[in-house]
Structure formats: structure tokens, C-alpha cells
């Protein structure tokens, strides 16, 4: 043996030390030079000696990344000698935000960053970015064609804080073939939990031994769905009118509507009508595309993949209501674009805004929507050539836009603004999963999860006040 055990025992110390290194690497010294957080006019880009470089940190890879790269290329070609945008993939949303935090500490933020919805309050609290509203006001930019539900989410204290870009909304997907086979109308998918159960009873297929071959329903335990169920029921997710009128101090996902949903979910599994999926969304998607579950809940962004991967006809309907008579709002998900002001020149800030304007044009949005399945942030994008071709091929795409257009715009559909929103979503999933995997009643599990967040919320609020 070439390796002696003793040498390797020092691995213990090395491990802790490397963890320390990892952690300390992310906690350098205070950074960020002064810079005023206002929107410069177009004149700052006149008489440039060299093109202004804009680094754009995003979380788009695979197909979505390619579409984004295409848009960046087009923009650079149109702005040759003036602005040069470089896209930089930073990992998934959580990782990208962690990278951004490290960059703030080092005073080296990218000019433009993509941050997911849950990070919105955090981004406001770091005070690094120029509020989107400043650009709109300075340029007199018209937002009337931008999707209202998106502006609603990213507007805080009457100010649009960031630019919606890659956004989606969850839908209910159905296996049309299974529906027809069971004598159900695939064009009128169930709209409430009770209706889903009814349909599931007919869609579930058992073999001679009573084993379930096909489940009526199956979706992952994904905290975003709780947010959506609450928006559709017209109840706030956190206090302070969803954190919009005052800083949120507690989460309200132990609401009776949510408890009812979780109980329903558990009964569906226990009665063999729904397959139990964990938190891994890929498992929920696989259960649907393999034909194992005839109905599922997923983002609009999954439609393209669903159609491609399943050997049955995929149908889409509105995300279900908890109960008939619920107001039926709709919340959005996804990310928005933030222009960093702190530590950046006027030229860089303006150049970033020019690029964002390019992304928000109907032409870009048509390409973006057709290529990725994300919503067209600029609703005129749906009229674009690419978007129309796609709508013709897959009429299901219209459902998402309709669902949003049908949504009421109020604080309950705006979503909760809270610094620890990401933790809140994880806690909601934990409460939900506790109810599904133990004897703990749903009400108890959800309220324990909600209470468990109090300390985090308190600590966060204390550290930003």
C-alpha cells in the first residue's frame, strides 16, 4: 500500500479548514465605491472612446441560454462600437444570488444581474441597484404593453424596482388521451381541487391485483404552488399586505385554504389517486410525461418539454382553485433584471438600460417567448412572427397568457415581499411534506413551519433596519 492511514487522518482537519476557506472566501471586506443611484440620460453614451462593456450575470443555460445568447449577439451587432454585452452564466438562481452577494462584498458586481422573484426584497435592501422606475421616469418609457401581473409583482412602494424578463406562471397539465379514454372532456379540465379528485377517480387505472398502473394526479411538493394556491384563493402569503404596505413579520401559509389543500393532497395519495412525489420537480415532470400520472401542476416553461417528451397529447388548463368561488388570481414566478448603480459609471448604467430596453421590445420578446416558453413580458411580443408560429403549432401556449390576463391585480396576486422569501418557500415545503410523510395533521404541520420562520424573519428585519 502506498498510502498510509495516518497521513489521511489529517483529512479531517483539512476538511474543516477547506470549509472555512470556502466560507471566508465569501466574506471578504466591505466593498463598493460610492455612486449615485439615478438613471443617466442617453447623452452619456455620446462621444465614446471605446465601447461600454456590460457584464450580464444570468441563470439561463441549455436552450434558454442559447436563445439569450442569440439576443445578446443581435444587440451587440446593432450597437457595434458603442455597447458590448457579455453574458455570463452563474448557475441556478440560488447560486447566482450567492455569487452576487460575494461580488457586493468585493465591490465587483456585474453591471446587470438576473435575480429570481424570491430575491426581490433582498435586492432592494442591499441598495446596490438603480430602481427600474428611475429609468422609466427619466426616459418617459411607456409600460402599457408590459404584462400587468409582472409589473404588479416587481413594484414595491409604488416604484418598479426591476425589469421582469424571464417569467412564467404555473398551469395544470392534463394527458388528453387519458381524459378521452376515461370519458372526460380534455377541453374542460378540472378547475378546482374537488373536480380534480372526481376526474382522478375516473382516470386512475388499477391492475387485477389492485396495484395502480396509472394515477389520476401527481405533482411535486413545490413551494411555489402554495404561493399560487393562495393567490388564487385571494389570501396574502405574509402580513403587511404581503409585505407591500409594511415590512412582513410573519408568514400566513398556515391559512385554512392551504391546510385544506394539503389535506386534500394527502387524501389523494392515501386513496391511491395521486402518486407521491417529493420535492424534486423533475420527478413530477417524469411522472406526467411517462403517462404515470394523468394530471400535474407545473410552470408554463415546462410545456415545450412536456409536448416533446410525452407520447400522448398534452393539454393545459388554468391552475386549480382551492374551492369554487375563489377569486382566482394568478401569481408569477421567474426572475427579473437589476441594473447595478453602486460602483458603476454612468455609461455602464445607461448601456445596461439600453440593453434591457432591447430585451423588452416586442421583437425580442417574440423570439424569447417562442424559444423558451417564458411569457412574453411585452404582450405585443405575442404578435411577433416567431411567437405566432409557435402559437399555431402549440395552441396550449395561449393558456398561460390568458390565465394572467384573467387575473385580478391586487396585493394578494402581487406575491409576498420579504427578505427571507427563499427560506419561507422551503419552510412551506417542509410543512407540506411533514403532513404527507407523517401522522402530523396538516394544520399543525403548516403552522409549525410558519412559526419556525419567525426567528429568521426577525433577524433579517433587524439587520436591515
Amino acid at each position, binding site marked *: *500500500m502506498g*498510502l498510509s*492511514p*495516518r497521513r*489521511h*487522518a489529517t*483529512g*479531517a*482537519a*483539512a*476538511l*474543516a*479548514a477547506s*470549509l*472555512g*476557506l470556502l*466560507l*471566508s472566501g*465569501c*466574506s471578504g471586506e466591505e466593498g463598493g465605491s460610492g455612486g449615485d443611484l439615478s438613471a443617466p440620460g442617453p447623452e452619456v453614451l455620446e462621444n465614446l472612446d471605446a465601447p461600454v462593456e456590460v457584464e450580464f450575470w444570468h441563470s439561463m443555460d441549455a436552450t434558454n441560454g442559447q436563445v439569450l445568447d442569440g439576443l445578446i449577439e443581435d444587440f451587440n451587432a446593432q450597437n457595434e462600437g458603442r455597447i458590448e454585452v457579455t453574458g455570463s452564466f452563474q448557475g441556478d438562481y*440560488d447560486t447566482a*444570488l*450567492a455569487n452576487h*452577494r*460575494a461580488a*457586493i*462584498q468585493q465591490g465587483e458586481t456585474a453591471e446587470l444581474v438576473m435575480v429570481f422573484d*424570491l430575491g426581490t426584497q*433582498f435586492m432592494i*435592501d442591499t441598495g446596490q441597484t438603480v430602481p427600474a422606475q428611475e429609468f422609466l421616469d427619466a426616459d418617459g418609457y411607456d409600460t402599457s404593453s408590459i404584462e400587468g401581473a409582472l409589473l404588479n409583482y416587481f413594484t414595491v412602494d409604488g416604484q418598479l424596482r426591476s425589469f421582469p424578463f424571464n417569467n412564467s406562471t404555473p398551469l395544470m397539465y392534463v394527458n388528453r388521451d387519458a381524459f378521452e379514454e376515461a370519458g372526460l372532456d380534455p377541453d374542460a379540465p378540472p378547475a378546482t381541487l374537488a373536480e380534480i379528485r372526481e376526474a382522478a377517480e375516473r382516470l386512475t387505472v388499477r391492475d387485477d*391485483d389492485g*396495484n395502480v398502473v396509472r394515477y389520476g394526479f*401527481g405533482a411535486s411538493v413545490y413551494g411555489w404552488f402554495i404561493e399560487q394556491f393562495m393567490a388564487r384563493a385571494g389570501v396574502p402569503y405574509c402580513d403587511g399586505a404581503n409585505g407591500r404596505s409594511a415590512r412582513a413579520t410573519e408568514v400566513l401559509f398556515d391559512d385554512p385554504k392551504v391546510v385544506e389543500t394539503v389535506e386534500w393532497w394527502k387524501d389523494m395519495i392515501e386513496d391511491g389517486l395521486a*402518486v*407521491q*412525489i*417529493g420535492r*424534486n420537480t423533475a*420527478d413530477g415532470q*417524469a*411522472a*406526467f410525461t*411517462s403517462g*404515470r400520472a394523468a394530471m400535474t401542476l407545473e410552470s408554463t416553461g415546462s410545456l415545450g418539454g412536456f409536448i416533446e417528451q410525452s407520447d400522448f397529447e398534452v393539454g393545459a388548463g388554468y391552475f386549480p382553485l382551492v374551492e369554487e368561488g375563489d377569486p382566482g388570481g394568478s401569481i408569477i414566478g421567474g426572475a427579473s433584471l437589476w441594473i447595478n448603480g453602486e460602483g458603476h459609471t454612468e455609461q455602464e448604467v445607461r448601456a445596461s438600460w439600453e440593453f434591457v430596453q432591447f430585451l423588452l421590445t416586442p421583437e425580442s420578446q417574440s423570439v424569447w417567448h417562442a424559444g423558451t416558453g417564458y411569457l412574453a413580458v411585452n404582450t405585443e411580443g405575442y404578435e411577433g412572427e416567431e411567437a405566432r408560429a409557435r402559437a399555431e403549432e402549440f395552441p396550449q401556449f395561449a393558456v398561460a397568457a390568458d390565465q394572467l390576463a384573467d387575473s385580478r391585480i391586487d396585493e394578494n396576486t402581487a406575491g409576498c415581499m420579504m427578505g*427571507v422569501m*427563499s*427560506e419561507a*418557500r*422551503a419552510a412551506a*415545503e*417542509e410543512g407540506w*411534506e*411533514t403532513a*404527507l*410523510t*407523517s401522522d402530523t395533521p396538516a394544520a399543525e404541520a403548516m403552522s409549525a413551519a410558519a412559526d419556525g420562520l419567525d426567528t*429568521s424573519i426577525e*433577524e433579517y428585519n433587524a*439587520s*436591515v433596519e
Partner: protein
Amino acid sequence: MTAPAPPSPAPPRARSERFGETALAWGFLAPSLAVFALFLVYPLGRTVYLSLHGNDIIGRPDRFVGLGHFAEMASPEFGQVLLTTLLFTAGTVVPGVAGALAVVLLLEGVIRGQRLLRGAFALPFAFSVASASVVFTVFYSPGNGVLNGILYRLGLDQVPWLTSQEMALWSVCITTVWMNLGYGVLVLAAGIGSIPREVNEAARIDGATGVRLARHVTVPLLGPQLFFLVVISTINALQSFGQIHILTRGGPVGSTTTLVYSIFEDAFAYSTSDFGRASAQALVLLLVVLVCTAVQFGVIERKVHYA
């Protein structure tokens, strides 16, 4: 290569020579000392510093909290994390080492194709944690997993591999044992190959075959390799992250959240940036690894026979 000569041939030759040698030694040691200080001493010191502080929202230490983070660990939740860590370690080390030993001993009885089989059993070693875990997500997938498909065809009950609090940890253990098996087979196969032929022949002449030969001759002679495997697997188990992250993300309901995963969650997941709490837990992990290793050296190594 040429070493720099002492600058001047001063009269007290012996002394200056010794000084020169010492300086030379330090000179050669300096690079590794610098690396050691930079990548081990400094981070360790920094971890201690961070563990005593609270963080602002972007993770900068901004207030001294003393031992507050350590005091918080006296909670049932953290107890659960430690228990999970312990179960995971036991659940991967014991079957991992025993499994590798069984494979190697059984392969001893195979004359033809032994090398090929050894190679086959060692193959999991070539998989990265990420790719092995992704493959196992397909096996375990709750909707249409491969394993449940096989069970169904055999007429057996479905297993909630990753979706039940009771089962998930063992599913992660199975994946880990499978991944570690290859390395264990490699190490033990090398060990068995180094046992002198005469020893086996002598034992055979004395009438020891099969189980007796294995139990009284082969296994004791594999002592150093087995001990090495136990120590390494324990440290690996305590450090495991990839398979947990990919298979369960610590769930359901924290049932697979080990100490390392808990550190990750506090420091990097959910946009929390709680480097203080994470650092405090990292120090606890250091302690756990040190204690485990010390105990293994103190207890098990005494029984190891080094040839």
C-alpha cells in the same frame, strides 16, 4: 539541483555549515508552509472568527455574538442532524467495508476471469458522485423509477425510496455504498495480492480452507487495508454532500440532513448567507471527525497486525 553555497567560508566552519543547512531546510519548507498557512491555518482561524459573529444580509460579519451560535445547537433539531450524520456514517461505512471484503473474498474462489470481475466490481469508483447520483434518481424516481418498476414486475410492493422519512436516508446510503464499493474492492484486492503465497500454502497444508482460511488467515492479514478503509470511509461519509444534494436535498422533512448538508443550507441555500452559524457547525464537524479518527486509531488500530 544545485543548492546555494554558504555565502562566506567563515572560520567556525561546522557552525556555519549547520546554520546553512537549517536555513536551506527552512527554505525548502517555506513554500509548503506558506500554502499550509494560507489554505489551512488562515481559513481555520477565519472559521473561528466567523463562528463568533452574526452576519448582515450579504454575509459580512457585523456583530459579535460570542458562543451564541454554539448555544443554539443545544436544540432537538441539531440533535436530529447529529443523529442523521451518525446513522448515515454507520449505514455507509459498515456495509461498504463489509461488502468490499465479501466481494474480494468471494472472488478469491474464482480462478478464471478473476481480474475481469475485480475490474467490474471496482468500476463504480470511476463514477463521479454527481453522475452516480443522477443515475440513482432515475432508479428511485417516485413516479416511474426503475427499481419500483422491477418490484412491480416481481409482484412486490412499491417502496417510497426517497419520499418517506423512514426510507430516504437508507436509499442515500445504498447509493453511497455502491459508489464506495469500487474503491474498497481496489484497496482490498491489492492487499490480498500482497499476502505471501507461502502463508496461504502453509495454512492449506494445515487443513484450513474456505471460511476458516478467510477468517483466520486472510482477514487478519488484510488488517492494515481494512483499517485504512474504515478510517477513509468514515471521513468520506462525514463529508458526503453531492448524493444528498442531488437525491433528496436533505429531505423529506430534514430526514437526510447531515451536518455537512446543514452547513451548506445555512451558508449557501435559500439565500441566507448565515456564515456565522455555518462556521460554528463546521467547527463541530471538525471536532466530530477528529474524535472519530482518534477513537479509530486508539481502539481499532491496536488490533491491526502490520506485516
